[in-house]
């Protein structure tokens, strides 16, 4: 949709009037429920921009006003129809647009429409709505014709700068005639193309989140230009051959759309490498689902990472595979960071090599958590709650929890005289029961009280 606001008055368009006009446009946008994703296409006005459109939020669109004293001011606000305009059907918002134009005129009609015409002291607001799909409605044109002097003038788009030739092209022709690459020059996201492009529709049906994918550089251009059968289908077949279930295909492509730019043979090589390393196909499929970024690593890189894990932690072959399958995100994770965390776990937390290996096998995620949180959680568990290392090994997942959540539960147990973490004594509370589960489950199963008592206790801290 393009709103063209033309000021015929030349010199007498004062600042105040522009502000009023701005408010009108704001009201209209509010009435239209312009979604925030409806991005401004351009606020192009020649020779000293008078008015620039910028929609900030979806309910209260705000416009930025650039005032200039230049005599020429054919202001122009244009918005890309990004999402079919919120929740209003095209018929509805056409009516709204009509209302808007009437309102703009009726404001001036206090002084008399005739006088306005005579003096040409009019803010001639012409609203031309071009939908990407449809054309301008007849009703709107007739409604405007009642008020405007010259209908040709109203619907034509007046751009005098030569630097914006492309936009003249785009807007003087109906959008439906434009090819997709032509449109792509102007769009800021994939939204305008989805209704036209079968490829994008099929990707959405697969479950690919285009709003995420379009943030990857160059990916939206690739998707708009590609043909589903020709360019994307081979990769989907490949993923299906690997064993990725159909409902996870969208997730894999959302997280790692770069798969579509990879060479098919190379992808097969990577899978072949994993199979060669005695991963079963089910395991490979599971790894691809959980860490699709893994497919960007070359076989050499994968080999290095697996070897690094094996050497650093002293794992056997099946153990390496176990870790990789259990937490495949560790494969693309940086080696330096794993080594640093390992150093901290060994040097500061005081776990031995054998214990670290056990931790890695039980909870590989610990070696990918943020160091500071890991240390403070351990500090609370070990120094305040007095849980020894060997007990921490039974449930290393406790180390990934935040210290504040641990603290509230531990203090509540203390207040109830139930903070007993020694498995050899009665009323033993296991670490797993302490950290996992919802508050309801924790109160009912461990503390044996209502959850409201727990919340009341928290308020005394």
């Amino acid at each position, binding site marked *: 949709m393009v709103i063209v606001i033309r000021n015929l008055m030349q010199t007498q368009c004062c600042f105040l009037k522009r502000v009023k006009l701005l408010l009108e446009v704001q009201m209209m946008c509010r009435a239209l429920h312009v979604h925030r994703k409806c991005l401004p296409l351009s606020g192009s006005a020649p020779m000293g921009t008078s008015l620039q459109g910028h929609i900030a939020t979806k309910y209260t669109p705000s416009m930025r006003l650039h005032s200039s004293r230049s005599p020429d001011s054919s202001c122009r606000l244009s918005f890309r129809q990004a999402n*079919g305009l919120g929740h209003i059907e095209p018929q509805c918002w056409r009516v709204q647009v009509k209302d808007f134009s009437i309102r703009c005129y009726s404001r001036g009609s206090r002084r008399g429409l005739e006088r306005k015409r005579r003096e040409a002291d009019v803010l001639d607001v012409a609203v031309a709505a071009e939908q990407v799909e449809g054309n301008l409605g007849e009703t709107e044109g007739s409604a405007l014709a009642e008020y405007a002097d010259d209908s040709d003038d109203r619907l034509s788009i007046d751009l005098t700068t030569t630097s914006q030739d492309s936009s003249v092209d785009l807007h003087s022709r109906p959008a439906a005639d434009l090819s997709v690459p032509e449109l792509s020059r102007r769009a800021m996201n994939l939204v305008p193309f*989805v209704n036209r492009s079968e490829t994008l529709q099929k990707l959405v049906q697969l479950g690919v*989140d285009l709003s995420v994918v379009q943030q990857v550089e160059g990916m939206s251009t690739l998707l708009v230009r590609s043909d589903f059968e020709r360019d994307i289908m081979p990769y989907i077949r490949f993923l299906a051959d690997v064993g990725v279930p159909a409902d996870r295909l969208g997730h894999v492509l959302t997280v790692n759309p770069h798969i579509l730019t990879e060479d098919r043979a190379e992808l097969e090589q990577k899978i072949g490498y994993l199979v060669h390393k005695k991963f079963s196909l089910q395991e490979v499929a599971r790894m691809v689902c959980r860490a699709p970024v893994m497919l960007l690593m070359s076989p050499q890189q994968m080999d290095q990472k697996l070897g690094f894990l094996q050497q650093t932690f002293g794992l056997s072959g099946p153990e390496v595979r176990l870790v990789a399958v259990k937490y495949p995100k560790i494969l693309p994770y940086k080696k330096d960071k794993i080594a640093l965390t390992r150093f901290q776990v060994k040097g500061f937390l005081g776990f031995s090599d054998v214990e670290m290996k056990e931790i890695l096998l039980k909870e590989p995620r610990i070696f990918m958590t943020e160091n500071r949180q890991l240390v403070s959680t351990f500090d609370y568990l070990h120094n305040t709650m007095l849980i020894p290392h060997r007990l921490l090994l039974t449930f290393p997942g406790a180390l990934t929890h935040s210290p504040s959540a641990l603290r509230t539960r531990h203090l509540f147990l203390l207040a109830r005289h139930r903070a007993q973490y020694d498995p050899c004594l009665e009323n033993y509370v296991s670490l797993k029961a302490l950290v996992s589960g919802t508050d309801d489950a924790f109160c009912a199963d461990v503390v044996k009280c209502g959850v409201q008592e727990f919340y009341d*206790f928290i308020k005394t*801290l």
Partner: protein
Amino acid sequence: MGSRFSWAPTAYKMLDGIFCIFKPPGLPVFRAVESIQRNLASDLNALPCYEYEIPLTRSQPIAENETETSLSIEAEPVSLQNWSEHRLVLGPRFETSDFRIRFVDGMSSSASGILVLGIGRHGQRFIDLIAQAKYLRVYHLKGRFGWATDNFTAKGRVLERTSYKHVTRSKLEKVCAAVQAAYSKQMHVLSGVDPDSQEAYEMASSGIIRPAKRHTSPLLYGVRCIDFQLPDFTLEVHSINEQGPLLNRLIHDIAVKLKTLAVCSGVRRLRYGHFTLDRALVRQQWHLEQIVDNIESNEDLLTPDKLLVGARAEKVKLLPPRGKGVLLPGPGDAQPDSCDTADENVSNFGQNSDR
């Protein structure tokens, strides 16, 4: 889906008003606000946000799309007409920046207690009114004798150590009363009325004497010792326009008068005007449904007679007497957490005469 909402924009519109949370210690206020914004965005995005997501079995039509007539219950979910309006194309509908949250009278990150927040258009307006009302705040300050630090809290750098065996409860109470008395003159100065006038008498008899302006120097209306187990002690402080460092310093000053040293080991705000702890949402409850419920339940506090107490002309009774029903027995707190009404608070001023 266990939510009682079936359409996210409707739920979004209900997020408009005042709610109060219990800020846990150690969490900065802005982090708490961010956390609430994140929770709200994810809760709303879990609801149906786009029209094709509306369950076909819904009983009543959507209220906000009156113009939409073509949407029928028989509409097939598969035949999506407008592909551009799809969650996977437009992305999640609500972002954290969609929730404008303001708070009044924040606290330091180490303090805990009730925090009043406003969300939405009405919330922003009422937050201003609440700020202008200059509500009385009640704090529990935990102190510990024995050493002094550079920032008066227990976590600061230790500057000096002393003994504290000579301190008794009665000595501490005497000093507390002296501190309270020192502020009673300040009270009249800041209220802007002559202490000997009829107006001042009426003001004092109808409630507490509030400062005339929003931002003044701190005023303490009551300082009492409610718990004393050497080396720990707890003070209950009623105040207006106080700031976090002042409360920490208060502990230090009191200890110096007792010829010893002390640090402040905890600050907890029990009450903010009419907002009491039983209304507050703990961190686990910072979610859409609880916040909407809280906003609704707080509407009875947004009446003119409660919001306009800060104006000097108002002679309304400040806080209606309420039962001491809010007892939260804590682990170490042998005493009940009393939430005194202002009337009782005023009666404390009688103790000032002896100093």
